[in-house]
């Protein structure tokens, strides 16, 4: 009897939780953006870094970025910080009601003022947003700098 080592996506997905996920799932990386963030957008960027980046940053293997890549198939950027079509009302809707397995976020987590700042950041011109928000761990690694 000969078995073929097929990488059947459906079966692998079905077994993802019992066999532990294989690594290697990657979302397309967005070209790094440089530059300073406009002062009036700093608070919104900090909100994004704290609450959104863990799933929606530009790095590989993040659930939110991977999901949006699959959903839009490249017709819009997978990373939220690269989107130019997001309006504050849409951002507010998704934050407070969630979507798919993204849960809603409560005002004790993202206050209404923070939500307004976040919306301003994600709807500002790209040039004003400055560099992408880092993942917390990456930020901490960089902060350690020469300690490595």
């Amino acid at each position, binding site marked *: *009897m*000969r*078995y*073929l*080592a*097929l*990488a*059947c996506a*459906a*079966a*692998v*997905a*079905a*077994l*993802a*939780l*019992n*066999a*532990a*996920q*294989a*690594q290697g*799932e990657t979302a397309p990386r967005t070209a790094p953006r440089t530059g300073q963030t406009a002062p009036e957008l700093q608070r919104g960027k900090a909100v994004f870094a*704290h609450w959104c980046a*863990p*799933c929606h940053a530009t790095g*590989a*293997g*993040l*659930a*939110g970025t*991977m999901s949006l890549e699959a959903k839009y198939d490249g017709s819009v950027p997978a990373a939220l910080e690269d989107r130019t079509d997001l309006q504050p009302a849409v951002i507010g809707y998704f934050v*407070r*009601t*969630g979507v*798919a*397995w993204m*849960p*809603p*976020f*409560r*005002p*004790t*987590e993202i206050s209404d003022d923070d939500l307004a700042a976040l919306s301003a950041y994600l709807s500002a011109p790209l040039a004003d947003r400055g560099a992408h928000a880092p*993942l*917390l*761990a*990456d930020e*901490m*690694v960089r*902060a*350690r700098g020469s*300690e*490595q």
Partner: protein
Amino acid sequence: MSVLPPDLDEAGFATFLEQLRGAVGADWVWSGEADMFPYRDSFSPVWNTGEERHASAAVAPADVEQVSEIVRIARRHRVPLFPISTGKNFGYGGPSPNVNGSVVLDLKRMNRVIEINEARAYALVEPGVSYFDLYREIQERGLKLMVDCPDPGWGSPIGNSLERGVGYTMPHFRDHFGAHCGMEVVLPDGEVMRTGMGALPGSDTWQEYPYGFGPDPAGLFAQGPFGVVTKMGFRLLPLPEYYRSGMISVPRRADFAKLVDHVNYLSDSGLIGEVEFGSPLSALMGDPQFLALATKTGGPSNAEMDAAAEAAGLHSWHVELQIFGPEATTLANWNYASDRILSDIPGAIAIAGDHFPLPATDDQLDNQTQPYRSSIKRRRSLGVPSLGAWKIVRDDGHVGFFPVLPRTAEAVFEMQRVLGDAMKEFPTLPPFFNALTMPLFWHTHTFQMVFAPSIKHDDPAHNAITHAAMKKCVAVAAQHGWGDYRAAPIYQDDVSDTYGFNNHILRRFHEQLKDAIDPDGIIAPGRGGVWPRRFRS
């Protein structure tokens, strides 16, 4: 869907809310359908059905004094409170309560890292502190400490440990409740109590000796409805100097027995951290013929599985080891582990993996350079919180059943067969239990397996299947001595029912305690299957 607290009318509810506003300020009280939407369990398999549990309001105190005042107000009005810390208990109920109309006591605003002691390796935190927050505090202060975090990392040390959640580093830190040391609790009458050495005025060992003197009630507050935990201490792992990994594979199905025994010895001796078991044969699951074999009723024989492995040129099992410590001792531990296993299991192969000093670099955290295909989530293994593992979620979420089983291959194979056969009643669900289903070595001294069927907000038929499968899985597992370790409110009574030794004396004991200190059920009635007299009927 707007609901009222039990036994309270609209006018009484309005008065109650007004008193809450007086205690915490009008900005920190919410009610009404729109404001309460984020307090629903978005992973609920009974989403939009009559079984879904809805809170009537939410209140967010800023400090322990406000928690006490809220509890006293709730006691006067006989309104159940449902405490949450960060509210991210997804798969186990999220922020939703056991009792319809409960008021969520949202502790997210209480987010102070009160103390981190590097030399004595502990932290004292409030409920709203997330793993991200604690990690950031440690990093920004340059402290040589490691947090054992679950995945995802947006939950809180207090919430996760009170759920008896688990992590991924060394054995005694993976059991998050076991790694706690000292707590402060607001009791159902509003009094503030401290456990262990926290009860001794002037003590400086609250986070170092958990017991103090006399009975230690700390366990009552984990998965229990006896108080609101407002502070909690945690033992932290001194940041290891070095990390080393490696993989050992064994050829035959029956070799798993010896492999497990060796891993148990290595873990119990403190020589290794969390391990990931796996099977190279998982690569064959896309082949319908092999899939049929692996999910065969009654389970395949060892000979059938060995023949399949041999034909594919694959080993049957592997285990990924992770070792922490000084560089020299990690190398010695790896050499010892591989020598021990290879000398006992013919045909076993050891492959040395990545090794590097800690803290890790970005690339090391990404775990892309192993000389073998790795299942290790490096960030969580190194105590770096992330949401990377969130990508395992399918559809709109899932619910989890994680039966506890002995650390033996015999038990693993039996659970594969028994629950695999039982779940054939639900053919539209993935075959979570099959001949390759691996145990998870999360808790210090037991294995668990995972059953986590998905939910879909717009597919009640699918959700009904998930719901029925969950209940059946709990029941069938219990018939074989396997119990769940943690459950969403909608399953807590089912799970509690299975812990029925001596006519449910454990639950009756808890009920006696509940009746004595909280007869009206102010604190999370029903949590952990413990109901006060008021709600038992």
